[in-house]
């Protein structure tokens, strides 16, 4: 099973793990991205993710297809949440199962890197000083998460 979704409800990593798990595949790699309380030295209080949802889901599916080609991973699920999120909320979760552990781990790493590059999702951060800003990773001094 391969499944990619942009959702407006909380993302449950345990549900994704259950979704990809099977008795044939002994290694499951998971990545979970949560909302941090700081970014580039500023105190974050909450954020809003927005998306070009139809294209985002299409890009996510394409990334999973590429992951299958590269790593042979056929059991993989990814969910990205959009809308308002609070500190600590899960923004993205990826679970990949494979017979071999390094294939599962490298697959998960590949998927999160590709998401960061090309899935049309945007992040509006709200700061403690009352200001807000659309995050532009191409302008940041260093990768943060």
């Amino acid at each position, binding site marked *: 099973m391969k499944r990619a979704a942009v959702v407006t409800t909380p993302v449950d990593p345990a549900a994704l793990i259950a979704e990809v798990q099977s008795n044939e595949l002994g290694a499951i790699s998971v990545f979970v991205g949560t909302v941090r309380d700081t970014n580039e030295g500023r105190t974050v209080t909450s954020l809003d993710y927005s998306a070009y949802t139809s*294209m985002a889901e299409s890009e996510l599916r394409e990334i999973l297809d590429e992951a299958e080609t590269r790593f042979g991973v056929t059991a993989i699920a990814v969910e990205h949440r959009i809308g308002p999120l609070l500190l600590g909320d899960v923004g993205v979760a990826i679970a990949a199962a494979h017979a071999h552990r390094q294939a599962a781990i490298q697959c998960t790493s590949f998927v999160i890197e590709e998401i960061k590059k090309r899935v049309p999702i945007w992040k509006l951060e709200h700061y403690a000083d009352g200001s807000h800003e659309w995050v532009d990773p191409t302008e940041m001094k260093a990768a943060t998460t």
Partner: protein
Amino acid sequence: MLTVQLFASYAELFGAPILQVPFETGGTVADLVESIRSLPAGRGLPASPRIAVNRKFAPPTQLLSKSDEIAVIPPVAGG
């Protein structure tokens, strides 16, 4: 005219989620970018913003038609 979707910071820049942009048959993605950047708010865009056509990133040379679903994609920040 082409209908162009805007998102996030670009929708704020133009004050609207959709633009109507003049279009001539045979025009490319590069031509569209030039048209958008010539609008009053267009100078706020980078020189080569990423353009999606029918939900896929499109190269500057790609030809456009009126039935295409077109969007200007700000720097992504998901994950």
